[in-house]
């Protein structure tokens, strides 16, 4: 009888609100799993949506919430891009590194076998772009094989500090597929001072030289800067400098500084505030590359099957969006 009364209450309450609004109906000792099953079934029949069952109440939205993915650009839909942390060690020790990479950081390499399998599963899972990052990927002796495994399956971007394009590493670079690979080189400023302050003396000049080497080798080069808010005035001169390097406007990327890893300031990023970009490390699958060294954004320790992790991230993202919409309904401004 309690279930009957609950359904009658839902029919009445939902009919009294506008499309998209939510109603919360108190429960009276009903077993939550039973309620969830009953209300889910009722919603499926009636075209409404179960939002939540908790704290002795059930919340239902009239109609169905908008597709949380519809508002995103296709290349930003969770699962469209797959980040792979090839390794965590680095020849630099940047003072804002979001994953605390440095020459002393353990390598924690994904390895060729896993990268090959991930690239293949990514293609099957509908991923449209692979992004390799670290650490510094060019520290790996098999970076050319790793990249080839990726470019064989999907268009790929390789993030690097651009400082190691000499000797055997340059030979490895030369062997990569220019038609399928973009090199994203980190450069923070138009002059050495700011860049070197965070990344180490002499690093700016070597990065600029690396950009030139990559371009000379025929690669598309994207330049990405990490800028704290206080350095906003330096953005315009930076773009002007990149123009002189023949970096296309769409390949000039400015990133905010996140308070993650060894960064002691920057914007706070949570799973609720971040649109996820599926990120795989040797240790698990994470919500976003900026948090790939933080358990608060660990999704699963299981790298395979990749599709399961992607599906779970998409499910959680949709759930966060629906909760946010519901909260907006609960807390109007006036």
């Amino acid at each position, binding site marked *: *009888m309690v*279930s*009957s*009364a609950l*359904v*009658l209450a839902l*029919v*009445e309450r939902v*009919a*009294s*609100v*506008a*499309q998209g*609004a939510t109603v919360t109906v108190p429960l009276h000792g009903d077993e939550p799993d039973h309620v969830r099953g*009953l209300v889910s*079934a*009722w919603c499926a*029949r*009636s*075209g409404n949506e179960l939002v939540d069952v908790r704290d002795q109440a059930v919340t239902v939205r*009239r*109609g169905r919430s908008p597709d949380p993915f519809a508002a995103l650009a296709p290349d930003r839909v969770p699962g469209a891009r797959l980040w792979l942390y090839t390794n965590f060690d680095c020849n630099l020790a940047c003072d804002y590194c979001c994953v605390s990479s440095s020459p002393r950081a353990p390598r924690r390499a994904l390895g060729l076998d896993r990268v090959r399998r991930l690239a293949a599963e990514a293609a099957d899972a509908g991923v449209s772009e692979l992004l390799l990052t670290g650490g510094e990927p060019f520290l790996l002796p098999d970076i050319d094989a790793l990249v080839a495994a990726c470019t064989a399956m999907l268009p790929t971007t390789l993030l690097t500090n651009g400082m190691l394009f000499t000797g055997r590493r340059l030979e490895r670079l030369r062997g990569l597929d220019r038609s399928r690979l973009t090199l994203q080189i980190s450069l923070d400023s138009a002059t050495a001072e700011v860049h070197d302050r965070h990344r180490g003396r002499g690093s700016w000049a070597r990065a600029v030289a690396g950009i030139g080497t990559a371009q000379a080798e025929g690669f598309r080069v994207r330049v990405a800067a990490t800028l704290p808010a206080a350095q906003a005035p330096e953005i315009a001169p930076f773009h002007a400098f990149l123009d002189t390097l023949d970096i296309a406007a769409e390949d000039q990327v400015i990133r905010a500084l996140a308070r993650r890893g060894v960064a002691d300031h920057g914007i706070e990023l949570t799973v609720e505030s971040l649109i996820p970009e599926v990120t795989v490390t040797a240790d698990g699958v994470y919500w976003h590359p900026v948090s790939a060294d933080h358990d608060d954004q660990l999704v699963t320790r299981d790298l395979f099957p990749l599709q399961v992790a992607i599906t779970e991230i998409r499910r959680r993202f949709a759930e966060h969006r629906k909760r946010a919409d519901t909260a907006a309904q609960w807390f109007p401004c006036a």
Partner: protein
Amino acid sequence: MGKPLMVGAVAYTPNVVTIWEGIREYFGDGPADTDFVLFSNYGRQVDALLEGTIDVAWNTNLAWVRTVLQTDGACRALAMRDTDTAFQTMFVTQSGASLGGLESLKGKRLALGSKDSAQAAILPVEFLRRAGVDLDDVSLVRIDSDVGKHGDTGRSELDALRAVLDDRADAAAIGITTWEAIGRDELMPGAFEVFWESPAYCHCNFTALPALTHDRAQPWVDKLLAMDWDNPAHRPILEMEGLRRWVLPQLDGYASLFEAVKEQGIAARW
């Protein structure tokens, strides 16, 4: 651009605003520009139709009958939902209550919805009369919880079902839409069962007076009937309004209500 065709509807739920703003937008690209006026009850809406404030009224079956009676038949129905052509009243009791047919209500308590609800009050009484059940033999529990909206909110029907659950009534008469809304007898096995269902009858229609010329009405009807369930832009409106397609009216389906209104002495105006 000429004056838009004005349609009246009763605001029985906030969704009515969404529905009619959607319909207005649908008609916005011609050739039958449309706007709408919302009323708090069907009495005021029919008054507005008769006074010429609106060109078309989105009427319940009782509002249609009352418009016909007030105009001596000088009104016409333009269209209705497919679901309006096969409306039904369901007589419901608790599962296992061993009621069978309307005759089994003798000596029982029957909960009815709002007195101006055709499906939950007026027609149920008519069906009892047609079945030869003397109303003196049935204890009617009238629940007038949404008078004025002709049962559109469904609230009085839900209250009638609650009366059955609480043993304040042995049975309830509700519309097919409420029966569907609670998941029929499939969602809550052991709660309710139908022991008699009525023949199909008609529910709502778009009602117009002769003042609305054929030249103005026909493009509007043509455009209305062109709404397409498979068109993503049209679908949400059709879903919210509870239909898959608009159809031309089937006036035979109002005969039982005309008879009920006459038998029960229900006033043509209120």
